[in-house]
């Protein structure tokens, strides 16, 4: 088991290296394929009508004059060992993990993204709690009362939840509950440490909006899983033992139906920690997702790299956690 985890971690590191390489490649190769020179690339990050000297200085500062592999190497090296940037006589030390300075704002990227992490974590974790509880509960009840009014109603709602895009439900909820009936006015992110009550209150709408989509998915998944497991032979055995129906459903049915849901939950959570782009944008939450949008709009390489690497890290980590957890959940699974 330990050997398995070590191997998986090593594989994950290689995967993250590949992700940075690909991101690098896309950033530099695509403009080059379109015939842009590195000077033209540098021009994006200088003010209007720059002098050729200024342009050359920027190009040199950003390292665009060097070959791609060397640029990548310095970047990767910076993450592991830190980096020192020299602007003429001045030098600035960028500490480990160094993702460099934003091309646009000239602020160090890593501290900025770290400061945004709590927002994204708050959003994802709160929504996750809501969607797991509601989604699984609705799914189980629907499966047990298959064909009932409750089942039809909740599955209809789930279909809506799956189909409606977040930007629509987000704006709708804002329009209704922040403006028309201002139950949640002046939505603004407040750190948990500063005011837990306000933190929660201001996150209710984003949580519910995000959870609506996922609850719908999870309700459908749970329902399908429960319908399948409740027709298994071992459920009949459990009943034949004389177990009360509640225990049959929860200990035998739900226990088996939850296994695939745990897997999907881990992956979904990992994905969201890399930034809930739509929700964060719709509710103006200064999280990682919003940062990613800014990075891409600004074509800001260090920012883009930091965001992609972070997102990839969360997904890889979630995968690993899920696989390890699976051993605990399903005794038939053993890794060698």
């Amino acid at each position, binding site marked *: 088991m330990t050997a398995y985890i070590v191997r998986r971690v090593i594989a994950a590191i290689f995967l993250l290296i590949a992700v940075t390489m690909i991101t690098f490649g896309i950033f530099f190769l695509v403009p080059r394929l379109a015939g842009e020179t590195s000077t033209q690339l540098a021009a994006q990050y200088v003010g209007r009508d720059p002098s050729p000297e200024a342009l050359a200085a920027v190009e040199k500062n950003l390292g665009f004059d060097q070959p791609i592999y060397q640029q990548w190497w310095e970047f990767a090296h910076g993450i592991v060992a830190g980096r020192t940037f020299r602007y003429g006589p001045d030098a600035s030390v960028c500490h480990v993990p160094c993702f460099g300075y934003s091309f646009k704002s000239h602020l160090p990227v890593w501290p900025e993204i770290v400061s945004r992490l709590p927002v994204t974590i708050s959003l994802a974790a709160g929504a996750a709690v809501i969607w797991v509880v509601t989604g699984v509960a609705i799914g189980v009840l629907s499966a047990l009362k298959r064909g009932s009014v409750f089942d039809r109603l909740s599955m209809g709602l789930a279909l809506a939840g799956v189909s409606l895009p977040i930007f629509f439900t987000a704006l709708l909820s804002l329009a209704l509950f922040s403006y028309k009936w201002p139950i949640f006015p002046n939505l603004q992110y407040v750190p948990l440490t500063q005011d837990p009550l306000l933190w929660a209150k201001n996150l209710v709408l984003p949580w519910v909006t995000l959870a609506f989509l996922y609850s719908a998915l999870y309700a459908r998944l749970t329902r399908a899983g429960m319908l399948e497991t409740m027709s*298994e*032979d*071992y459920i*009949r*055995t*459990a*009943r*034949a*033992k*004389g*177990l*009360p129906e509640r*225990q049959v459903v929860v*200990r*035998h049915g739900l*226990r*088996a139906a939850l*296994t695939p849901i745990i897997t999907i939950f881990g992956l979904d959570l990992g994905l969201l920690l890399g930034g809930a782009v739509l929700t964060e944008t719709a509710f103006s939450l200064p999280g990682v997702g919003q940062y990613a949008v800014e990075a891409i709009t600004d074509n800001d390489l260090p920012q883009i790299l930091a965001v992609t690497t972070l997102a990839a890290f969360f997904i890889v980590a979630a995968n690993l956690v899920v696989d390890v957890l699976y051993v605990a*959940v*399903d*005794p*038939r699974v053993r890794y060698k």
Partner: protein
Amino acid sequence: MKRPHLRTGTGTVTAGEGPPDSAFLSVRDLRIHFDTDDGLVRAVDGLTFRLDRGRALGIVGESGSGKSVTSLGIMGLHRSGRARVTGEVWLDGEELVNADPERVRQLRGRKMAMIFQDPLTAMHPFYSIGRQITEAYRVHHPDVHRKQAHERAVEMLARVGIPQPDKRVDDYPHQFSGGMRQRAMIAMALVNDPDLLIADEPTTALDVTVQAQILDLIRDLQRETGSAVVIITHDLGVVAEIADDILVMYAGRCMEHGPAEQVFSRPQHPYTWGLLASMPRINRERQDRLLPIEGNPPSLIRVPPGCPFHPRCRYALLTDGRSNTEVPPLVPVDADDPDHTVACHLTPEDRQRIFSEDVAPGL
């Protein structure tokens, strides 16, 4: 056969008040119908039989004859929404079909227990064998400590012949072989010393060499505990091994019922003949082919009128058309043998003649 008897000449008995007789298990006019989109499925249609403690009844028939449905019906395991169960099931003086489901649940696993066909799918893959046995024990012994229940599980595993039961008790079903799993399943069923054990095709999913071991185990345990056993199978070999009585089912009804030695030595129903002729035997001449019963079991939505077996019966023409119109009653074969009953329109003389001239030589 020394037991007292209640026989009304037909397979259907009108529902009475109170326990019908001293029988430990008495099934009377059991009907289990399923409402489906295609129509009403009459899986069991008027089944009556009885069974005493210490005896084993083998219910035999093809797939779809209603054997398993019957066993689940006795256990009260049909979901009320889908199945319509009528008739009576008396277990030790208590009626189950119309009883409070909670009461039936309390009896399930304690007074009557069941073994299923495929122990791999019938055991929960995520819980250890021991956990599943202790669960069955503790649900009916809520005051028993976890530790005591664990000891009981180990004891039961030892009793069904699992080597190193104190170690294997923590194994999961997938770590057991098929035969071991079925032993564990039996241990789980017997953990509360039930008086009635229903085994639904307990050896079908097993290796031939293991089948005999499992049957021996069931028989030994039955002798030890004096419980009643209902064994459901399509394999006459299994029945010959273990059953005191045989009940031959077809299309949800009883075709022939009697002591095993009688049914094997003087089978009365053409369907029983067919089953016997299609059974492989070691002493059969190599060139003799097994004789299948022509045709297929009928749809339980449109059961043929009259004798349900008549479309496949080679002798139906000898009954002057009664087989096609009239449901044959279940009657004793002859006066000195009231326990052996058959539902067939052929006259006893015809049956005797056909069996000795036509059927017996081929067996």
